């Protein structure tokens, strides 16, 4: 599932589930539809609820990064679980897109 929120100049995209080719397509189409009408300064990708990612998901992330770069914006990633973080790392994406730990999520996890 892909949920989007626009806050000031930022597009926040929250993905839930397994980020494979099905959700990658959803993600790509949803973001591109918004950015084509309205270039924004930031694309924040919230991966807190993503349990799995493969190269189709990575491709969609990298593609959105390129798009927002072209439009002069920036991209960042939030809250990837360790298994997802590992794949992001292996792919080299971490070297070009900054990844932050979502603090709210960390607190929730500690309390669980």
């Amino acid at each position: 599932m892909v949920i989007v929120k626009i806050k000031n100049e930022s597009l926040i995209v929250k993905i839930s589930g397994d980020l494979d080719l099905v959700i990658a397509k959803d993600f790509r189409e949803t973001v591109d539809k918004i950015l084509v009408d309205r270039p924004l300064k930031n694309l924040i990708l919230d991966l807190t609820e993503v349990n799995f990612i493969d190269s189709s998901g990575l491709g969609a992330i990298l593609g959105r990064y390129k798009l927002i770069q072209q439009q002069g914006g920036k991209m960042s990633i939030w809250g990837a679980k360790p298994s997802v973080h590992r794949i992001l790392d292996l792919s080299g994406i971490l070297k070009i897109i900054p990844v932050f730990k979502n603090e709210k999520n960390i607190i929730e996890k500690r309390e669980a």
Partner: protein
Amino acid sequence: MAMKNRDNYIKLEFSSLPENVALARVLIASLVVQVDTTITDLEEVKVAVSEAVSNAIIHGYQNEPNNIVNIEAKIVAGELEIVVEDSGIGIEDVEKAMTPTFSTHPDRMGLGFVFMKSFMDNVEVLSEIGKGTKVVLQKKLVNDGSCARVAT
């Protein structure tokens, strides 16, 4: 728990729909958790299966939904072997296809085979133009009684 680590065999045939990548992944994960393996092993196998099955659908059948993908998996003495097969377009140059970042699709990263190779012990690709592609993935599963239950 009774009857862990027994040899097992499954074979799944399915329509070449994108949604079925998750289905194949879930099935193989259900098979792997029967063995007391680590969560890391489980995650790695899921990625490798996802790549091979996505390739069959996207590349092999070029997203045509009315074709059949086959996946066979067996565990013998803790050794997992998965065979993913399509009867699609085939690969012209397998060696080139397996090169990191090589892709025939502009939107894709060319990391599918890279992930299969990094996450499995052995990857073999047999392909014939116009006939189809068969990917054999092998991995010795680490036996770790302390972790497997978490993943079920």
